[in-house]
Structure formats: C-alpha cells, structure tokens
C-alpha cells in the first residue's frame, strides 16, 4: 500500500494494545532464547550459523590480509597467534532474537514481519562483520583498545543498530483504522 502524501509503502496495522504487546514480546523472547539453548537448535542452527559467520568473516578479512587464518569458529593471526573466537553470543543471534521477538509481538501483517526480520538480520550481521573485523585488528594492536571497544562501543552500536531497525520498521506500519 502506498501512502498518498509520502509515497512510502506501509502495512496496515492491527489494533494496538500495549499490554498485549508487552506480554507477547516477553513470551516470544523467552521462547526464542529457550529454544536457542536447546541442543537440537544449537546443533542444527546456531553452530552452523556461528561457523558460517566465522568463515565469512575470515574470508572477508583474508581477502585483504593473508595473515588471517580461520580455524573452525576461530579467526587468528598466523604470525602473532592472536585470535578471536566466534562463539554463541558473538554471532549476533541474540540481538536478532530480541528484534524478532519484538517484530513478532507487534501487531503487523506477516509479510511485513517477514520483511522486517530479513532487513533486521541483514543489518545486524553486516554490523557484526564490521565488529568482528575491528575487534580482530584492535586486539592485535592493543588489548586495552580491544576490551574497551568490545565491552562498550560495539555493544552500544549493536543495540543502536537493532533499535534503529526496529523503529524504522515500526514507521512502515500504517495506523489501524
């Protein structure tokens, strides 16, 4: 649907009830995290995804630096031995789950939700690639800088990234009539 004034495409919104949204959001969030922690999900989805992220990150880095080595979920420097491990939590999955829970809880058409999830996943993972790369080189350069960026800068940026995506997605939802 195209808005007459802005030309943006929006999705028709369902009637919004804050309490219902909050409960749904909390319920879905718990369910998703609980599922993620189960062995089948870990084995079937999380671990492969983590490995994919690590390999993709290593490939991206090796495209510019032959010193970068990827071994399993680890990216390290063959010359210095410094490495970073892409583990659960490092793969951006938790941030995606939070965003997904919010989008699924919010009253919106399913197609709109699906598009939002895809866009959110892309945004989170792209920023996660940048995070991994910056942390790899910051770690080789300075442990202090690595720790500061790791603990503060990139968590804030990831949160901001998810929040921006969330808000932009909400903005595409047409008010309910």
């Amino acid at each position: 649907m195209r808005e007459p004034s802005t030309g943006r495409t929006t999705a028709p919104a369902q009637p919004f009830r804050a309490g219902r949204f909050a409960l749904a959001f909390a319920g879905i969030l718990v369910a998703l995290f609980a599922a993620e922690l189960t062995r089948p999900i870990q084995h079937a989805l999380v671990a492969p995804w983590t490995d994919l992220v690590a390999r993709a990150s290593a490939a991206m880095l090796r495209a510019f630096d032959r010193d970068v080595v990827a071994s399993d979920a680890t990216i390290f420097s063959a010359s210095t031995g410094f490495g970073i491990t892409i583990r659960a939590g490092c793969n951006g999955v938790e941030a995606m789950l939070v965003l997904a829970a919010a989008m699924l809880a919010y009253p919106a058409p399913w197609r709109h939700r699906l598009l939002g999830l895809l866009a959110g996943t892309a945004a989170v993972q792209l920023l996660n690639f940048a995070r991994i790369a910056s942390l790899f080189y910051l770690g080789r350069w300075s442990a202090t800088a690595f720790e500061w960026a790791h603990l503060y800068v990139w968590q804030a940026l990831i949160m901001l990234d998810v929040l921006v995506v969330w808000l932009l997605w909400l903005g595409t939802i047409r008010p309910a009539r």
Partner: protein
Amino acid sequence: MSGARRARALAAACALSAAAAGASQHVYIAGIAGTAVTIIDTSAQAIVGQTGSIGFAQSGIAVNGDGSKVFAANFGTFPPAGVWDFTSSGLVGGFVSVAPQAQVFGLAFDTAANRVYAATPGALVSIDPTTRTIVGSLLATVPFCIIVNPASTTGRLYYSDQADNVVVVVDSSFAVVTSIPVGAKPQGMALDPSGTRLYVANFNSDSVSIISTATNTVIQTVSLPPSSAPTGVVVDPAGNDWYVAEGGRNHVEGFSVAANAQVLDVAVGSAPFGIDVDAAGRLYVPNQLDATVTVIQPGATPSTHTIGPVAGLAVGIGRFIGPGTPDPPTGVTATPGDTQATVSFSAPASDGGRPITSYTATCGTQTASAASSPIVVAGLVNGTAVDCTVTATNSIGTSDPSSPPASVTPATLPAAPTGVSAVAGAGQATVSFAPPASDGGSAITSYTATCGTQSAPGTGSPIVVTGLAAGTPVTCTVSATNAVGTGPPSAPSASVTPVGVPGAPGAVSAVAGSGDVSVTFAAPAFDGGSPITSYTATCGSQSASGPSTYITVESLANGVAVTCTVRATNAVGTGPPSAPSASVTPALKSYTGPVATGLGNATVSITGGGAGCSFAPQGTGALQSAFFIPVVGSPKSPSAGTAPVQFPFGLLDFVLLGCDPGSTVAFSIAYPRAIPSGDAYWKYGATPAQPAPHWYVLPATISGNIATFTITDGGLGDDDLAANGVVVDQGGPGGGAVTLDPVPALDRWALAALACLLALGGMMYGRKMR
C-alpha cells in the same frame, strides 16, 4: 614286266650329280622326250634354269668334283647316243658320241682319274672329259648304273647289269674284279657315306640288295611291297637311313641303316624314277609321268612339296645332285670386346655336299676365319657399331653371309670413376663420384660402390652402401660397368665412419623413492658414432628421459617392486636396453600438500622404519592418510571437535604401513611459514598412559617452519598403541601462545536493555499510532 614299266626302266638313269660353284647345291633333272636338263636350286627350292638344247632324250647325269661341269647322257638316236657336257648354269660345252652304241644310260665321274664313265648296251665306256674323247672300253652286257667308290679297296667302279642281274666290280685299271648276283633287273644304286655298303634297287624283284664293299657280297636283301618296282636308292648324308623310290607304288620308303626298319613311307608323284638327297637331308624324287620333282623332308612328321614341271619325263636314278656351297651359318651373335668382337654361330643345316672347311666372320671391314664357332674379329674401333656376318666355306665355295647380321659395338672396359667422396650415415655411406673420363666405347650401364666389404650397385651418383658396421672406418671405391665388363676401381675416398645407435648403458643402479625411482647409470662405451642426446630409463611400466646419467622415474606404484633399464639415444636412434638394475620398491616417504588453513603447502617426510615403511595412500579410510586436514570438519578430524589450542596449519593425519614392527620413524614437517613461537606439537589420540583419545603434546623440535619428532611403532604418538608395523598419527603444531578472545555481540545486560528499549519503543509507537 609291262610295256610302260619297261619303258620307264629303260629311261631310268643311274647316279647323276650336279654342282653349282659359288652357290647352293643344284639338282639336275634329265628329261625323256625333252630337249634340256632342268636345274633346281636346293636353297630356293625352285627351278633356276635349264640347259640349252642337248637332244631329245637324256638319262644319266654326272657332276665333276668341283661341280663346275655336268655331264648328261643322251640315249636317243637324234643326235646319236653320246655324252653332253655343260656348266652348272646350263651352258652347253660339247658332246662325245659313243656310236655305234645306240644308247647311253648311267654316267659317273671319277675325280681322281678325271674320267667320265658311260653305261652303254654291250660296253662300259671311259671318256676323257678334257679332250672329249673315248679312252677306254670294257665289255658288258647291259650296264645301267655306275657308281665310283674312291674309298673301296676291292674295286673302283660298280655297275648294275640288268641283263645278268649282277653288280659288276671293276678295278682302277678298268678290269672286272667280280660279279655279285643281286635281284632281278638291278637298277639304281647308292653308296653309304663311308663307302662300305652298296645299296642296289632290284626293279623286278621288288627288293633292295645290300652289298658289303669289303667282301663284295650281298649281306642282306630287303623286300619291298609287291609291285614296288624300285627305281632308285640313296643313303642320307649322315648315314643313318636309306630311302628307295618305288616306281610301281608311287611311294618312297625309308629304312634305318642299322636295322633296316622302316622309318618313312610317303606318297610321291606318278612313276617316281630315281632318288637323291642334298646335304641338308632333303630327298628329291623325279616323277617321270608327272614331269615333276617331289621334295621330301624326312623326319618324325615328314613333309613334301612338288617342284615342276620340268623339261620332259623326269628321270634321275643315282646321284643327280651336285655339290655346292654350304648354307649360311645360323644363330649368329656378336659380343663386344676391346677393339674386337667375338662372333658365335651355329653350323648350317647343309654343308653343300662337301665338308665345311672354314668359317669366316666379317665385322665391318674386318674379317677372321676359324674352323668353328666362335671367331674373334679384331681390329675394330671401340665405340663404332658394326654388323657381323658369318660365311661357311667348303671345297666348292663360300656360302652367302648369314642373315640377319648381328650388330655389335666394340668397346673396352670403362675407366675408373673420379672424385669419389663418401658421407657416413646410419650403418651406411653415401658415395658420390664423377663418371670416368672414358666409357671404353660402350655406354656405362652401372656403377658399383664398395665400402669395406659391402658393395652396392647403382646407375649413377650417389650410391648408398648399406650394411656397414657403425664405428668402423671405411674407405669407398667406385667402378663402372659397360657391356664389356667392369672397369678398375677408383681411387679410394677419404675414410668415413658410419654411425649407428648407441650401445647399452652400464652400471645401472636404482634407488626407490616415494612413488619414484632414481636411476643412475654409466654412459655406454660406444655412442654409435653420434653424440648421445638423451637417455630413457624404464622402471616397470613407467619411463622418463633426460640428457644426464641420473633420471628419476615417477608415477610408480608404491609397494610394487620394479627393475629399471636404460637406453641411450643419439641422432640415429635408440640403442638396446641395459642390463636391469636390482629390484627396488618405491615407497611414499614424503608428501607435499596444502595445509588446511590456506597458508600454503607443507611437506612431510619420514626416515627410518625400514625400507617398506611408507605413507598409506591418500584418503579418509582407516588405513589411509588424509594428510593435512582441519581440526574439525574432515572425516578424520579429531572426534573431540574443539582443541585446547589453536592450530595455525591445521592437523596432519597419516598412517604408515609396512614399517618394521616396533621401529622408530623420524618425521620432518616443513610448514609454509614459521611456526608461532611457543607452539608445541599437539596430538589427538590414545597414549599408553591414557588409552582414551585425548589431546596431548608430542615431544617435538620446532624450529622456524620445521617440526621434527620421532614416533616408535606402538609407542607414544602411535594411536593404535601396537607394535604392528602400522603407525597412526594425527596432530600438528598448536599454539599455547595464541590469544583467543570471545567477542560476544551483547552481554546479558545489554540484551536485557535492548529488549526493554524495543518494548518501550514499540509501546510508544503503538499508542501514538492508535
């Protein structure tokens, strides 16, 4: 006897002879009721003339010794009975009358006495042919045929007496020696060539009496068919057969001299009267009533033809063919020589009635004579073609030249070729040369090049002489050949050495490698005369080539014993293989491949463990070597998954097979870059102290990019923990110095905060939109 038969008998003549100087034999046919004697040429087999008019009736004929004069008897009364003489061409010379005798039958010429004998009723008359006068007379009853036998020792003359039925023998003094009874009415007679037998045709007895001139007795009487009425008899020049003309049967029969067996019986004309034979063996039979002459060619398939008509009723008992020149020799060939020609030929069929005394060969303007073939005619000009002919000569004269002539070009041997040079090839030499200055007068037909013991013909330069031994120097010569023969060899060429394939290399030694064998050998003692360009070593089914005496043959199956041979190659070809090396078994003792982490290639090699100790073939099976694998993700990656350290080059997985049980194998691994400082060689597997697979550090020396360690079969590092000749290993340099930091995207507090922010944002936006 019938009237006609009697008339023929009266007309029969005895021996008549003819001769033709300078030509072939002539046959003189007398003719009753004719006025001339007909002359037939034996070569032309045709009538060539006749005499002038010599009276109304002739009978006997005689020819003098050289055939130049012929005598003919006239038995009629007009002119009176007498003897005519004329030349071989028929030119009448004169006449001798024998009056008062009324008839003359047979004549004979005695060359030694120069007398003509004439048979007349009542007397045998002797005539001097030079003065044409009667010089003697011998009483006789009815002499008919006279034969002169110069070879006889018991008598000079024989005449048949038709009244007394005897043959009377007369000596050289013209006195009667004896009388030999024969058949009734003896008529024609003939001597064999040796003069030992006299054949008498008994007209009324139908038989032939054979008289031995040595004993003057009849030794055999041959009966003829009834009513044969033989009129004449003759013996062939070779003395093999005798023939009789049968006037009553109109046939001629022939019999062998040896057995008197019949060899011929052919029909002739009507009333054959007399028979004679020429030097070629042809029989001539005058046919009285046909006035023709039948010519018979005896043999297995006798042939006849007729010549005529002749003048008068043909008669001719006895010898009426004169001597003549021989026929030309036949089969003449000429072989060239140095300014000469060698002429070969065959004797003619006819000697003309007289023995051939010589042959004369004529080539161009040069002649030479000899008694027989061949004749060498000298004085010829080399290179000038001449025609060669041959003539035969007897006492009468010389034959016509042989035809066709044989062409020949006298020549001598060609000179030696010049400018001989040779170029060596593979077992051969190519010989070049210039033609000789002289071909000897005959075109050169071929050249022969000789190098060492080998020769080869050719029609020009160059000639390739093959079959030469490689490495053996030779010089070459060339000789030219023309129709005369082969000339002298040229001056030898410079020495050349033919080349060939090299000999076999020696001292072949093979050392097994990993899937290859290194072959060393000694160059062959003989390079074939051409530098060796390469060697080819063959081990099993694989070969490799190279220019040096060290060649590595690759792609061999590990564990399969092979022997190696080497062959040398030069510009000519490849020589024989060497003796095989000792058997060796390639083993995979080294492997190079990319490490799993993408840093490049690493090489692992082993020493020790025994000759057969080698890496198992590459693969992911239990008894296969996977070589460089990642820590996880490979079928042979450790089952533990994660490792306590990081492996910058991944892991090395291998299985050694064929090692001596309990032996120690030394490993050396060269990685693509320096191993991080502080790294140890980590292994995953069982240890004697802890059989369950686990990560542990294998004692190793790490320096730069090289890691070296040893593993004893069944000891630490061998995952199967058994001294069974199989070593199973899995490990790699791992980083104790590696810093691994987890980089979680959001910690739990951040996640909680994010969830709150999203919830808050959603509620605010929802209420706003509501």
